[in-house]
């Protein structure tokens, strides 16, 4: 049990909320946060609204700047890196995947194109004439892998491949986003509320999709408000409050603690 994929230490972040004269008023969002994420496991973060969960994800992904603290990422078989030194797209290429809150697919692209966006980027005008053989083979592989994934979660790829992602139902869009993470080379996945906007009956499908990600040896960091869902996928759980990880433990324990703190 000592094989971390992510080691966050001393991470602090504040926003300037208003300025009156020379006094800057600050709101601390994260204050010297420490978190170790073990490889290949599911780590759920619970915390009330505004506790800084999404801010934490945004800092790990590089969408929000943070200069205080350190986030060490240990990719399998490669040298560890301090993520804070890289920009957002480099972090993604280093192996950080992200499911955005709400829409996490390209709405104007069809299902097939969305899946291809999970492929490692090819530069030099992105293979303008599609002539490079190994890239074409790679594409086929990725698509068939994604099709299998979607089939397992109850979505027919062949039927929907030419449909625009925006025209899919919320649940299908979410599954497609999972499929993109599944076929990508990302090792650590940050899932920001995968169940928001999803009907209660469809939670098992999302849970199944999440289990498949774990079965691919991917590490998952999850933010979710829906406690029914969180109890469906047990793992390590962390309670984030006042900008710190207050407690870590089993999902059951932390849910119990979270509920008693929320007073319900």
């Amino acid at each position, binding site marked *: 049990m000592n094989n971390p994929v992510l080691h966050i230490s001393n991470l602090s972040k504040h926003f300037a909320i208003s300025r009156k004269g020379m006094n800057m008023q600050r709101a601390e969002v994260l204050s010297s946060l420490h978190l170790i994420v073990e490889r290949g496991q599911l780590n759920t973060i619970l915390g009330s609204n505004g506790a800084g969960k999404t801010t934490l994800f945004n800092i790990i*992904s*590089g*969408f929000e700047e943070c200069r205080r603290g350190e986030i060490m990422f240990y990719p399998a078989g490669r040298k560890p890196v301090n993520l804070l030194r890289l*920009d*957002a*797209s*480099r972090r*993604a*290429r280093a192996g950080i*995947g*992200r499911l*955005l809150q709400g*829409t*996490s*697919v*390209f*709405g*104007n*692209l069809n299902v097939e*194109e969305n899946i*291809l*966006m*999970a492929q*490692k*980027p*090819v*530069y030099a*005008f*992105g*293979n*303008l*004439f*599609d002539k490079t053989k190994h890239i074409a083979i790679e594409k086929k592989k990725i698509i068939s892998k994604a099709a299998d994934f979607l089939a397992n979660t109850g979505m027919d790829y062949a039927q929907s491949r030419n449909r625009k992602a925006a025209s899919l139902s919320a649940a299908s869009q979410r599954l497609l986003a999972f499929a*993109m993470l599944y076929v*990508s080379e990302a090792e650590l996945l940050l899932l920001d509320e995968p169940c928001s906007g999803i009907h209660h009956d469809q939670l098992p499908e999302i849970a199944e999709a999440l289990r498949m990600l774990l079965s691919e040896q991917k590490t998952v960091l999850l933010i979710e408000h829906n406690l029914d869902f969180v109890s469906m996928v047990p793992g390590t759980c962390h309670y984030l409050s006042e900008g710190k990880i207050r407690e870590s433990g089993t999902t059951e324990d932390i849910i119990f603690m979270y509920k008693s703190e929320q007073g319900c």
Partner: protein
Amino acid sequence: MEYFVHTAIILNIYAILIVSAQLVIGHAKLISLGQGAIFGAGAYFMALSMIRLQIPFVPAIMIAIAGNALIGLLIAWPSARLKGDYFVLTTLGFQFIIFQLTYNLSSVTGGSDGLGGIPSPRWPGLSDESQPYFILSLSVFITALVFMLYYRLLRSDFGRNIRAMSDNELLYKASGRSVIKIKSQLISFSAATTALGSGLYAVYMNYLDPHAFNLDKSILILTGVMLGSLTRLRGALAGALIITLLPEVLRFAGLPAAQGASLRQIIFGAVLVGLMFFISWRRKKQNQTNNNE
């Protein structure tokens, strides 16, 4: 007949300008007010290398393409880092800077007198009367080439990446791609293909006037893109057809020449405003029918 050939050549040039602008304005959703200046820069690159350096047509057009690609990078460099409004500002400012350069550096560009004596490419053994037809065939050939290039491009990974980036920049970054990089590439590519239109224009007109590449031209190109289609290649052709023919129609309608230029711009302005109303009205209606289903 001569009139027909002239109109056809201009149509081809506009088609190249519009399909190039479509990549930036339509696919990448970056509103550009500097397409006229990019067109002009290419034309001056072309003319200067043919006149001052005595270079023949094909290598000269290569120089124009390379020069414009660099200019595209120059425009993209500050603005690709920031959101849309800065791109409009940069292109608008670039529009005036290019005009100031071509107008004020008169020892190089001829200034307000213009730059004359640009040689036309000639096919060996072809008579003077056939020369316009040769230029027409050349422009049809180059236009077809440009459209084929864009056809491939938009179906390639590059095209998909552009659409994905303009759809959702955050997700695009999260997929490991650099927004700055793709914006720079596409703006530069669009400027480079614009240079083909510039080259044709320079050798067909044999003369460049800084006023031919002012803000009006940029807005004309913008109108062409908006009128035709933001994403379809066929639309680019339709847009080129409208902006080529509309002035001709106005001329036949008997507008006095002195006011004609201003009136034309007023009409294009009104067309832009009307189009925006139409587009948002149509989308609203579509959304309503979708919700009713």
